[in-house]
């Protein structure tokens, strides 16, 4: 069992003639086996948090820490790791806007990623079966393996690819950044089932970033955090999502305005 600890995280981005602080002190602890939902209005910094965890070079951590702690007392400083080291350490980010990589086939990409994360190339025969099975679970046309990574895929197809990678790479902690947005009802169900299979597959932690509550009807969170002004402003159980459903984010953005 391990724990992802985020402490007082401040993150800035470069803007014309200076820097702009987006995350203003995020505190969050997720234990393996738990699912946390982060909900917040557009522009509140949810994707920034996701990118900072994954190590995107555009997002500069100015203070605070991200640590992977294990039960035996081991502590790994995530911020000192490169992007690929973080992935190999068991972190995964399903992106809000997955990137197209022309010239690289999906098959080649998936195998390269699995080889990197597992530390050895998966045996070809079992691998092909594994990929086929995972694709069929997500209702992805098998022909997609021959297409270039995300190239020309629709928004929904890209999101399925992210969950396919989640299924194949089996990270310790997965950050899902608005994986639900842009999906129709059927796709939302298929994708949610994919996430639930991943959750059921082991002691894994999920940070589910969403703007809407509808995905929480498929994926039940243990904790719900409201995100505004670049930090967590309130935390609670699943019932907090119901309140947000009823009354929106206004109460929290007002608090933030008063403080800030």
């Amino acid at each position: 069992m391990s724990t992802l600890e985020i402490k007082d995280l401040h993150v800035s981005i470069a803007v014309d003639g200076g820097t702009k602080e987006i995350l203003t002190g995020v505190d969050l602890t997720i234990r393996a086996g738990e699912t946390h939902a982060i909900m917040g209005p557009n522009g509140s910094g949810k994707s920034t948090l996701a990118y900072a965890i994954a190590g995107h070079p555009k997002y500069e951590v100015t203070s605070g820490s991200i640590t992977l702690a294990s039960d035996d007392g081991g502590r790994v400083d995530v911020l000192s790791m490169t992007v690929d080291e973080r992935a190999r350490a068991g972190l995964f980010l399903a992106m809000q806007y997955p990137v197209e990589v022309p010239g690289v086939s999906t098959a080649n990409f998936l195998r390269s990623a699995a080889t990197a994360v597992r530390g050895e190339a998966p045996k070809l025969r079992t691998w092909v079966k594994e990929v086929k099975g995972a694709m069929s679970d997500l209702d992805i046309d098998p022909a997609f393996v021959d297409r270039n990574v995300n190239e020309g895929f629709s928004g929904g197809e890209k999101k399925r690819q992210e969950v396919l990678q989640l299924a194949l790479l089996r990270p310790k902690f997965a950050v899902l950044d608005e994986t639900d947005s842009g999906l129709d009802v059927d796709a939302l169900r298929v994708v949610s089932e994919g996430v639930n299979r991943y959750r059921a597959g082991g002691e894994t932690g999920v940070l589910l970033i969403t703007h809407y509550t509808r995905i929480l009807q498929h994926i039940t969170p243990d904790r719900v955090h409201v995100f505004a002004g670049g930090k967590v402003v309130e935390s609670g159980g699943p019932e907090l999502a119901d309140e947000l459903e009823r009354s929106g984010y206004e109460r929290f953005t007002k608090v933030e305005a008063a403080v800030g």
Partner: protein
Amino acid sequence: MTAEVTGLAPELAGAKEGQGSKPLTSASERFTSYDVEAFEVPSGREENWRFTPQRRLRGLHQTTTFDAAPTVSVTETAGVTVEIVARDDSRIGEGGVPADRVAAAAWSAFTTATLVTLDGSPDPVTVRVTGPGEGVVAAGHLQIRTTPNAQATVVVEHSGSGTLADNLEVVVADGSTLHLVVTEEWADDAVHAGAHHICVGRDATLRGVAVQLGGDLVRIVSTVDYRGPGGDAELLGLGYADAKQHLEQRLLVDHGFPNCTSNVLYKNALQGDGAHTVWIGDVLIRAAAENTETFEFNRNLVLTTGARADSVPNLEIETGEIVSAGHASATGRFDDEQLFYLQSRGIPEDAARRLVVRGFFGEILSKITLPELRERLEAAIEAELAVTGV
């Protein structure tokens, strides 16, 4: 980096006057001559010279005299005849006529040419052209020809040091099929200005792959000319320019007969400061060339900042009776977002870069049917990648 797409026919402006002040309106008016004196010394402003850094040509654009000839070696086997012939051999010139001063200078200067004739279905043949050595300027002439209905594969490898201007004639006889791979695997100092004159006979097939890897400056001007109906030319290219390297490919596919096809795909990768590729692709469909099918595409992959890819595809159609004609050009950057995405799936940075470059060139390399050659070129590309340190 620029990706340039213009509408006017390049290549052709003011070849004779050498001024470029009076651009010709069509590739069909392109000036050609075997005689170097028929061309003026280019100033560098002409359409067909404007991308070439003249200071790095080691005087090739001015000179009419050469120190030496390159070394050409080819093994005679069953179905392969190798001859060293004089300038007045009646077969010389069958492939085509020089269209710029450097090609004409090499043509005016060569004393003997190597002529390789392929008959029947010979085993694959390799022709090795070795540069004259550092500081030496050479002119060369090579002709590769098939007999009617032959089926042959030829690899022309360029390597070594020095400066070379040369003409390569490729005569694909009626009904024959020629697979031709031409590689530029020069040492870092080399300068090569080459002209390829390719003629495709009635119902003949050319499958060409041009590979540009080494050299300080490589400029290849290729003309494909059909000599009867039913000709089919596939022209693929692969280039990898690293820091300060200039790789230029100028192509004219001249459709003058009906029922011919041409399929052009050139891909370049660039990395490092001052890496420069130039791709000019002209396709001309003359009035007689009914039922032509043609497509040309240039793709460039810019791997680092400081590199520049120029790309000018051009299609000129003089008949309405064509099956299909298309052209395109795309220059993409291997950007930070792609790198981040691949790394976020655990793939280390250098492996991510290799994945992208291998994927990019795979389409071309897979068309090279000789496994040893393909593996050597794959290894050469890996070595280019290792150089980057980026």
